[in-house]
């Protein structure tokens, strides 16, 4: 079957490269590494390579996952080395695991995403921020406007994102600023984008945080299993 789950990072300037373009970056890296991707059959064949949960432009990640199917069998360590030699600065493989269990797709298994949100201190002091987080989570409902496209019509819908927030806590204070750690519902059964969350947090609590200086890092993607919450490549 030759299927692999690849965990990779996408940091630095690579945060400006969109999901579709990243797919091309990988396809070309495979070709340069002379590793043949399997192609789908049919009228317009496409390589069997998919990224578990596309990242929004501007977000960095050290917990990206991708599944690929190859023509030949490769040793996971060799695969990792060969591809890392061909990837641009800012993208690299963290681990490669051969897929043993038959699952539909890793994308369908994703339940949670963990993010680190950092921003400069500005005028905000620690206790103020702590209180804001507390008050924010005390709100009965956290409503945001969600823009949707249905049947080519644009509609705006108000949704309550509170049930999608599983963790939202002040993690540390450094010289540069604050770091918030958060665990959000992610995937096809409910999804919260950390940018939407931060916008709502800043607006609801009337905080003086410059959105241009907000830095978001995805740390991990998780799924539910018999063992509890595990990283997506452990299913």
């Amino acid at each position, binding site marked *: 079957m030759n299927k692999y789950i690849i965990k990779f990072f996408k940091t630095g*300037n690579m945060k*400006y490269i969109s999901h579709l*373009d990243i797919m091309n970056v990988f396809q*070309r*890296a495979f*070709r340069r590494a002379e590793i043949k991707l399997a*192609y789908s059959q049919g009228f*317009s064949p496409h390589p069997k390579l998919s990224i578990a949960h596309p990242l929004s*432009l501007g977000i960095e990640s050290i917990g990206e996952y991708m599944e690929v199917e190859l023509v030949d069998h490769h040793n996971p360590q060799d695969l990792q080395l060969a591809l890392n030699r061909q990837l641009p600065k800012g993208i690299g493989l963290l681990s490669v695991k051969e897929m043993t269990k038959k699952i539909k797709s890793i994308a369908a298994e994703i339940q949670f995403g963990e993010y680190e949100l950092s921003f400069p201190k500005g005028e905000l002091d620690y206790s103020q921020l702590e209180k804001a987080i507390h008050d924010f989570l005390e709100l009965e409902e956290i409503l945001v406007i969600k823009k949707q496209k249905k049947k080519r019509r644009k509609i705006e819908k108000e949704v309550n994102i509170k049930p999608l927030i599983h963790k939202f806590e002040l993690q540390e204070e450094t010289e540069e600023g604050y770091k918030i750690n958060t665990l959000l519902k992610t995937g096809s059964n409910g999804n919260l984008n950390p940018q939407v969350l931060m916008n709502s947090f800043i607006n609801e609590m009337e905080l003086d945080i410059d959105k*241009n200086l907000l830095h978001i890092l995805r740390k991990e993607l998780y799924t539910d299993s018999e063992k509890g919450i595990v990283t997506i490549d452990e299913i």
Partner: protein
Amino acid sequence: MSIEQELDKILLKVEKPARYIGGEINSITKKQSDIKARFVFAFPDTYEIGMSHLGMQIIYHSMNREKNIACERAFAPANDMEQLMRENNIPLYSLETKTPLKDADVIGFTLQYELSYSNILNMLNLSQIPLLSKDRDESFPFITAGGPCAYNPEPLADMVDFFLLGEGETLNTEIMKKYIEWKESGTNKIEFLKQIASMPGIYVPSFYDVTYNDDDTIKSIDKLYENAPDTILKNIEDNLDEAFYPNKFIVPFIDIVHNRAMVEIFRGCTRGCRFCQAGMIYRPVRERSMEKIQNIYDEIIKNTGHEEVSLVSLSTSDYSNIEPVVAEMMDKCRKDNISLSLPSLRLDSFSFNVLEDIQSYKKSGLTFAPEAGTQRLRNVINKSITDEDIYSAAENAFKLGWGNIKFYFMIGLPTETYEDLDGIVTIAQRILHIFRSLEEKKSKRINITISTSNFVPKPHTPFQWFPMNNMKELEEKQQYLAEKLKRVKNVTYNYHDVYTSFLEGVFARGDRRLSKTLIKAFENGCKFDGWREYFDFDKWMKSFEESEIDPYFYNIRKRHYDEILPWAHLDVGVSKEYLIKENTKACEETLTLDCRNQCTNCGINKTFKCEKYK
């Protein structure tokens, strides 16, 4: 704050931020301590257009072979980015090391089309570099420019320190080596210009003075520095197998206009179409050997991972061994799962076999370029294609399943009459008739696109003396065709805007007095003139007025053979006698044969080795 930090604050606010970050596979970032001279290759259009340009990849990698020389890139930022850069006081920078252009040693612009000149000025201004050469003191980099429009660079004579005529594979590096020597010698900028003025292909405009007659034509072009050459001969690579060719193309992160690896199979063209500047300035024909072509292909795919490769030249079918080369390429591509693109194929039976093979699933469309609607006018322009060629190719295409066919014509050609325009309509009608009367066709639908561009006379061609049609004439011709073609079913008619053609015509054959107009145009906010959404004709007319230049003088005027043309001192190797002879033959409506069959004495073999000259 460093430029990188500044960029981090604004890049998420602009469209396609990947245009501005660099770091692509095969891009080269050198250690600061290794660099003795930094050249910035500046493309006066967006990233997507500049990155599709083969010349940039060649120059970039050829210069970067030298350890001490860094060649980096800069493109014209789109409007949204330019606004943010200006607001945040970020100067134009090179993608590789984020060095402000004003701190580079030499900035080289490529002159691919006249309508990009305003972008050059805008990019200089964004770099916080004075526009005029005379205003740039010793602290500023040298500004140079090359590419096809450098064969008449006079409109930019006041802004550019020196021009490069011809091919840069070796010349650019040589110049930078001289630059390093000069920098170490500690002399003035003028000394450097004097040193390089005698190198082949180098034109220092400030070493020449142009004087004018009362009727505004040129009286004389005189040297101001006695060691400068009387005429500047272009520089070329004699042998393409020995010339440098990059096999590590920079691979962009985002989709660009031509997102593929390119293998150049030959340079030059033997057809001798009289309107075509490329056919004259890139002489003589030089082919790359089959072996070399295949090597390049292998290396390029290995190094880039591109999913598409194209064979490039002015006229692919004219390569002397085209059939085995294409067969070999198709074989390799099939094995590697790569798509092959073959632009500018002549539609003969061989090409159809090839196209049938590489487009078997998706028939993307076929393009014919008869250029003129009647045999008479095709004789005038020396385009040796007959009505019969067009019709049999179309019939073939329909039989094989193509339903989309495009035709390119020019309007406003010398001697053109409305009968010639009717010829275009006849071709469309006839093609439709062929389709309808055909029984064994695979495609049920037919779509004929007729596109016309406006003929612009270009320097160094047999048509350089002809007047261009005025805008009213061109518009009337377009209206006429639109009206007639409206009545032909399944035909779409596209035509090129006359205002940009007018401007292109002025700058193509303009002299150095137009530098003033360019400055005014920049001040009036002209940029991206090749882009419909930015082009503002009124601003240009205002700029002509403010600089007291009559644009019609350059366009709507027949020049005499003995007039001193603004590019008279620039030599592409094709003789004036040949151009005059071809101009006369055009007026007599006689064809000149393809010079691969018999030498037509264009004069190129007097200065360069011509493979076709026997």
